């Protein structure tokens, strides 16, 4: 029998980047996580949403003790301290879950309120859960409805109006450091979507010299061709760092690619030229201690998102309106959510 709807997760609201990067799920380990979570007794439906700002597990369970079991399983999977995770995670139930997913898909819950990338990420997670055959009628419906809610929000409200992207903030910062971007040499580590968008922003403001490096050299070559740049074998990035002014990190590496010692060595060899490091990756690609160095400017995804969302006050009314509409839609869905062998959930609750 299907049970109540739950969500266990940590996001930028509950956990700083130092915690989020430790609990982020590497793409190659997603299958393993699904397998482990499926073994928990009582879990009947399951979907994992994993982005740079959140890791959330949506479940339909029939046992009241499922939070403990989910937490234990997840922390065991990561080798992460259970108590710390409990402190930085949240647990939602039933209608709250529906409302939360609606807000997540619509970008209301994002660090940069109104951003649209999140919808693609939610859709990808949904597709991944379908592949893992872990969805059932409840999560299927809730996810489908969340896509519709996101579409409605985008069409009928001005939530995205005046919103600034992370990429354009990064470009503004680059101009504050280097002025004209024509003479800047840019290195992109990883071939992620956000990195590509950031590069396109840099190009639109005059950047010309772009190099892409990725663990898979073919993928780097592909992106380099697309961006009219060149590709660099991943093994050479440490040696080549000294030649670049702007370095964008967006790899899925689990440990930092560059330590403070390496950055100090690079700056010794180019004392007059500042270095701008844009860390879009979670877990982060650059050692956080680099930020304290002279002439080195390190911005991670949280820093950029906060700057991008600095005009949030101006959009507060629109955000509130969105929230109200999504809440009523969530309530409506929850009331009408029919489970396979039962009457609407509301009767049971």
């Amino acid at each position, binding site marked *: 029998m299907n049970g109540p709807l739950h969500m266990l997760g940590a996001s930028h609201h509950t956990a700083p980047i130092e915690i989020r990067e430790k609990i982020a799920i590497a793409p190659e380990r997603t299958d393993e996580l699904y397998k482990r979570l499926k073994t928990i007794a009582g879990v009947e439906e399951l979907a994992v949403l994993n982005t740079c700002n959140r890791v959330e597990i949506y479940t339909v369970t029939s046992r009241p003790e499922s939070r403990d079991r989910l937490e234990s399983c997840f922390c065991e999977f990561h080798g992460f301290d259970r108590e710390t995770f409990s402190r930085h995670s949240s647990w939602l139930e039933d209608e709250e879950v529906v409302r939360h997913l609606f807000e997540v898909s619509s970008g209301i819950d994002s660090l940069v309120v109104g951003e649209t990338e999140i919808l693609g990420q939610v859709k990808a997670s949904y597709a991944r859960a379908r592949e893992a055959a872990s969805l059932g009628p409840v999560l299927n419906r809730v996810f489908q409805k969340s896509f519709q809610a996101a579409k409605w929000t985008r069409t009928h409200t001005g939530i995205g109006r005046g919103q600034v992207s992370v990429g354009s903030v990064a470009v503004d910062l680059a101009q*504050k*450091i*280097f*002025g004209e971007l024509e003479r800047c040499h840019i290195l992109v580590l990883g071939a992620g979507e956000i990195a590509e968008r950031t590069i396109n922003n840099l190009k639109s403001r005059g950047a010309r010299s772009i190099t892409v490096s990725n663990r898979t050299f073919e993928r780097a070559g592909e992106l380099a061709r697309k961006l009219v740049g060149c590709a660099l074998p991943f093994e050479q990035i440490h040696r080549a760092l000294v030649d670049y002014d702007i370095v964008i990190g967006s790899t899925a590496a689990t440990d930092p690619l560059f330590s403070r010692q390496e950055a100090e060595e690079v700056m010794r060899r180019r004392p*007059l030229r*500042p270095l701008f490091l844009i860390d879009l990756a979670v877990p982060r690609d650059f050692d956080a201690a680099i930020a304290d160095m*002279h002439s080195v*400017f390190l911005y991670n995804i949280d820093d950029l998102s906060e*700057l991008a969302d*600095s005009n949030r006050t101006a959009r507060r009314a629109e955000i509130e309106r969105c929230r109200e509409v999504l809440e009523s839609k969530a309530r409506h869905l929850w009331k009408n959510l029919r489970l396979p062998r039962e009457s609407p959930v509301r009767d049971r609750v």
Partner: protein
Amino acid sequence: MTLFLQMDDRAWIWAGNLLYALAFCIGLFCLLQSRRHSPVLLFILVAFGLVLQTTGLYLRGLEARGCPLGNPFEILQFVVWSLIVIYLVIGSTFRMSLLGFFSSGLASALGILSLLVADWDAVRRESLFGENVWIELHAALAIFSYGAFGILALTSLMYLLQTYSLKHKKLAGLFNFLPSLYQLEHMNFRLLVMGTLVLSSALVIGGQYWLRDLDRVDPTKLLITIGIWTAYTTVLVLRIREKLISLPLAWTCIALFLVALLSIPPVDASRKPATAPVETATPEPRNFPFQEAVPVRRSADTAR
């Protein structure tokens, strides 16, 4: 029109300095409202202020029969004048955002301070080596270099502010309009080279005369002047060798300019007052030009 004809040198200088202050206030008002001020308006106000200040200094020059550098008031006014001239050249050539705002702020602060301290304009000092045009040039170049170092201190301050904003992720308000670090770093280097070269030229010219008659040179002035020149030259050499860059360079340039400013009173005091004081032909106001004028005595420049 009659008012303009009746204005004496200090009144013209007051008017020029007030225009600098007005430009600064307009810039500040816009910044407080987080909007970009009109650089053209600021430029025009400052340029017009320079015309008025130049008129005042010209009238002083006629009276002194030479470059008016006879007391701390005149020296500071000449520093302000040089600073503004350099800003107008740099501002129009390199289009450096906020430089006009900072320049007008420093110029009005120094200028109005020198106008308010009556003692600084009470006595005119004796000129060394009489009316020699090379000595006039030496003095003018030395003070002009202070103008360059003043702008250097401002661009250094802007560099510090921009670095602070980028390091602390505070990009709103004033920080939003600062020039890039790259532009500021290059401007600092250019101004350091320019100031040091001008000061070196001044010392070379002055040195020709000092060597001929060492007894007439006060050791305090000589030591301070050579000390400042040595300090700036050392900074320049270290910068060229990339040993003193970015934040330490900016802090050093600001500190050195403060030292240079503070050296003006002792250098001035080391010179002898003119020997035969005479009543000035016109009564001179000490403070605001349109206040009631109080007749005062100013030393005649009899040594010239």
